[in-house]
């Protein structure tokens, strides 16, 4: 059963099996030859002189897949985009990363790619919102903006000679706090129009990073530049003076009600990741509503009964979507 690791009872097992079969039957009709497993032959027209890319090999004059994934074709190039792999960045992707290192004029971010991404000091808006050249002083104060281990949201700018570059030229990007970071396999997050979501009814922010890092946190209003200016200037001194009380404040800042919704949303993402379903706002909302309507405790959402239920609902949803088309 695709290594779904849940303590299932006999009836739950049968139900999950049935649901997965249903899901498979729904998907296979659409494009059955695009998804391959190892040693599947990929149909190509040899007269065109195809170029074999990643995840393909020549076997007795036939092109076969060496990884599980989806066949992609670009002109003559044929390659397999493997599913369970690290994140492959594309320009414009919104990603969430964790600062691995503060270096000269740049931060290095772990974004679940083969190499660390680079966020230059010059390619991000300064916290005071002023556009100017970055001075040596700014460089010394880089740790005031992001420290090691901070969670940062940014956009993929492109490949440069020294690696993958990110940019954060808007107020919606930047440091994330008051929430939790979840990691899921990157293929579960599809590129969409909108990756920043504000769930108003719950008062939480949800950021679906294309690299499989998902942030669930308290909603933070994008502040006005002027106000932010004053706050950021006074912050260091205040922090030094009464750091203990401020830390206590910060710890208790998020109220319990919001916390509950954050945890509920986080568990919805966890359930989807266990089941291997795509993660989108609608589905997450659906799961939250389902759990609320069932009056389930938050931690019970990770139980096997709820997982099976979510799988069944998802199958239902997909089949009804199909009928509409």
């Amino acid at each position, binding site marked *: 059963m695709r290594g779904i690791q849940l*303590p299932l009872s006999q009836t739950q097992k049968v139900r999950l099996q049935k649901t997965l079969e249903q899901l498979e039957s729904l998907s296979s009709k659409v494009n059955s030859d695009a998804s391959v497993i190892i040693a599947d032959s990929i149909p190509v027209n040899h007269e065109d002189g195809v170029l074999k890319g990643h995840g393909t090999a020549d076997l007795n004059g036939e092109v076969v897949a060496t990884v599980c994934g989806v066949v992609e074709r670009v002109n003559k190039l044929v390659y397999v985009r493997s599913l369970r792999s690290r994140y492959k960045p594309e320009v414009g992707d919104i990603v969430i990363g964790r600062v691995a290192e503060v270096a000269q004029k740049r931060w290095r971010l772990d974004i679940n790619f083969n190499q660390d991404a680079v966020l230059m000091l010059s390619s991000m808006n300064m916290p005071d919102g002023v556009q100017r050249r970055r001075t040596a002083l700014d460089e010394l104060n880089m740790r005031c903006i992001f420290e090691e281990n901070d969670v940062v949201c940014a956009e993929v700018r492109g490949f440069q000679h020294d690696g993958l570059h990110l940019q954060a030229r808007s107020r919606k990007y930047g440091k994330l706090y008051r929430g939790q970071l979840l990691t899921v396999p990157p293929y579960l997050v599809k590129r969409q129009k909108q990756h920043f979501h504000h769930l108003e009814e719950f008062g939480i922010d949800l950021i679906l990073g294309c690299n499989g890092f998902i942030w669930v946190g308290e909603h933070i209003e994008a502040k006005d530049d002027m106000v932010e200016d004053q706050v950021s200037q006074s912050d260091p001194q205040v922090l030094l003076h009464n750091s203990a009380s401020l830390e206590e404040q910060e710890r208790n800042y998020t109220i319990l009600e919001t916390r509950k919704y954050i945890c509920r949303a986080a568990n919805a993402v966890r359930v989807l990741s266990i089941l291997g379903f795509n993660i989108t706002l609608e589905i997450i909302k659906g799961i939250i509503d389902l759990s609320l309507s069932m009056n389930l405790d938050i*931690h019970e959402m990770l139980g096997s009964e709820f997982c099976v239920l979510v799988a069944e609902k998802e199958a239902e949803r997909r089949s009804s979507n199909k009928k509409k088309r």
Partner: protein
Amino acid sequence: MVGLSLGEKHFIQGGIAHDLRCDGRKRLTYRPILVETGVIAQANGSARVRMGATDVIASIKAELGKPSLLQPDKGKVSIYIDCSSTAEPAFEGRGGDELAAELSNALQHCLLGGKSGAGAGIDLSSLIVVEGKICWDLYIDGLVVSSDGNVLDALGAAIKAALCNTGIPRVQVAAGTSNDEQPEVDVSDEEFLQFDTSGVPVIVTLTKIGRHYIVDATSEEESQMSSAVSISVNRQGHICGITKRGGVGLDPSIILDMISVAKHVSEQLMNKLDSEIASAEAEEES
């Protein structure tokens, strides 16, 4: 695991203060426990226990040996734990050895009792075949396959499950040997004796974060701990062993409080584990 940002740390600490942890659990709620038994065919008994992303395997191998001179009426039990280097980046190379030694020590304290073997959770006198001559040596090996916090509790549960799964072959001793000679034995391949596990304790680790303490901490939560107390409790609700990790001191009254909480929690854990083991055994047979 990777480090956490200040915001995440505060969120975890605040959540624990509010009695709502990151995955929605309360302070004294466990993650779902998954038990599989008989995972290693060559061993006399084995079990795999998963709590969330923590994954451990325990195996038990029984061999015939000679009891020590000091305790001729008792068998021998030894516990070794190994931390797989795939479990966590920090375990690579020799990184896991320190934790492995710490875990084996803690388990020995919790399960084996004193030097004389008195008060052990495993009944050592049941391992004797011929007094002073032949006994069973039990080798308990634990492997941490993947670690997401609370490894000690998981290992304790895995060893308990593996002991329940253990069958020790029946031994026929050839009669009529004189006192000095080593008696001849005949080990049966068909008849197995079930091991008595009623006295084996479960381990409950209470991790103190801020002013509160929690059970079954994930590795993120463990990174925020000030100290952790592992208490092993048997079915009668008696304490079999206590070990403490972390450098921060604890007030004695807190420890007493922790013990009473652990006693209460262990009852639930013991029942949960028993039912899981029973269903795992049923699964294996079917």
